């Protein structure tokens, strides 16, 4: 069970080379296969996640949630997806058509690219990148452009307002996001996510870096445009923000991308702070799924507890609280490492 997928990949790779493909092309084909699998997993995940979020939010509000279609309403998302696929695709006549149409595609591509480096088990990742953590952060920062494109292309003031807000928010929160991860990098001494997982063999980094975990959690919530930080959508104020003008499948792409980001960030949190795929008894790829879903549930919990924060409070919280705290955490971690070496503990 443990090495199920690794062995499958090895078998496929061996079969491809036996067909006469040179190793590098066999690797390329394998990469494509991996991507297809990743995209399938993401799609399946999201079907479950949307249902889960609706169910969890219902329970928080003492409601029942979807319960009509199938047992516990589990087919509700599929029905919704079919509905969205068959809806009319409206492009406003005043919109900048090229940008309007490109934005959702760009957004989802960026979101899917996040999965390149996440270790989904022992030896299971699309590419074992040397600078995986940094890659994750930098790709995550690209989604601002997609939102800005959506807001600009819609040619609607609500859209533009939502886009501008979200971009300002995401650019600001990227700084504490990266800084809070730096503490982990200092301890593990590597940007490679598999190395970071390996460094947590004895002790999870959430215990060594609690401040970093909290700052990362807050910054990630803002980065995902979720929970109390869902300024860009802000249904009550901006009628849907950057997504106002989108209909049918284009809107669904944004929705998909948001949940894709959510899973990716939760998986990264599980990897960096919660010991990744390590765990007893169960196979590693099951552990990462369990941990990721645990983090996602916490995200749901936070989202359905707190009201939306005002924009200026949001920005000043980032610059005046989160950035200094994460910088202080780096200082503390450095001092701790020196102290540890001086005492000869590590």
């Amino acid at each position, binding site marked *: 069970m443990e090495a199920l997928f690794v062995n499958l990949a090895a078998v496929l790779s061996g079969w491809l080379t036996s067909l006469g493909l040179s*190793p*590098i092309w066999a690797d390329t084909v394998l990469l494509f296969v991996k991507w297809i699998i990743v995209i399938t997993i993401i799609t399946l995940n999201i079907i479950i996640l949307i249902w889960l979020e609706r169910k969890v939010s219902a329970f928080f509000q003492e409601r029942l949630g979807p319960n009509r279609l199938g047992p516990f309403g589990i087919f509700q998302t599929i029905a919704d997806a079919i509905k969205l696929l068959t809806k009319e695709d409206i492009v406003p006549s005043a919109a900048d058509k090229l940008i309007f149409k490109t934005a959702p595609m760009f957004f989802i591509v960026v979101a899917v690219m996040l999965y390149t480096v996440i270790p989904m088990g022992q030896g299971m990742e699309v590419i074992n990148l040397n600078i995986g953590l940094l890659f994750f952060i930098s790709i995550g920062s690209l989604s601002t*452009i997609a939102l800005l494109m959506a807001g600009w292309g819609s040619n609607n003031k609500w859209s533009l307002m939502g886009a*501008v807000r979200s*971009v300002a928010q995401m650019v600001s929160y990227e700084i504490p996001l990266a800084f809070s991860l730096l503490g982990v990098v200092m301890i593990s001494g590597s940007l490679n996510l598999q190395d970071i997982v390996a460094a947590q063999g004895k002790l999870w980094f959430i215990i060594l870096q609690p401040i970093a975990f909290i700052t990362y959690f807050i910054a990630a919530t803002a980065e995902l445009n979720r929970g109390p930080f869902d300024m860009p959508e802000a249904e009550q104020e901006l009628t849907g923000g950057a997504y106002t003008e989108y209909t049918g499948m284009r809107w669904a792409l944004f929705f998909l991308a948001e949940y894709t980001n959510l899973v990716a960030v939760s998986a990264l949190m599980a990897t960096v702070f919660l010991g990744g795929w390590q765990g007893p008894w169960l196979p590693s790829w099951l552990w990462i799924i369990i941990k990721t879903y645990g983090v996602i549930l916490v995200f749901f919990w936070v989202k359905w507890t707190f009201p939306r924060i005002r924009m200026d409070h949001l920005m000043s919280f980032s610059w005046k609280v989160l950035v200094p705290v994460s910088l202080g955490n780096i200082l503390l971690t450095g001092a701790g490492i020196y102290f540890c070496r001086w005492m000869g503990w590590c």
Partner: protein
Amino acid sequence: MIEFSGLSLYDAVFTAAAGVTVTAALGVVLFRNIIYSALSLVLAFLGVAAIYFQLNAGFLGVIQILVYAGAISVLIIFAIMLVMNRPAGRTNLTSPRTREVFTGGTITAMMLTALIAAIGLSDWPKTVLLKGADDTVGMLAELMLGDYVVAFEAAAILLLVAVVGAIILAKGVENK
């Protein structure tokens, strides 16, 4: 290198990345809508990042995406939105004086010719692409915080000064 119908994978990646970069760069200077120019610039940055990745400079590529495509381009688009005072289709015009365009084009053409000639005529060491060291991040870190630490600190101060200066310039100073 593994040849595949006369073109190695490496060459194919370079050609694609270079093509995207040059096309996007042309887009930056030729689009009449400055928003298109800015988005084109993002594409050019991404192409350059691809070239970095291909050159085994992964750290630099990631920094390129993070700083250029993620932050600087957003800054540029914000600035564009703040200073936009005419229809979007007429925001990025060429100079009205043909003399200027002609001079600029001539200078560019001459410079490009000179550069190409220089590159073509020079005797570059016959380097077969060597497998570079894997841990460029470690090497960079050692250089940055070792031999070049003064420059590193100077760059940090430069950034701080630039941030403060930009804020003062953009916000204006309150007159007492």
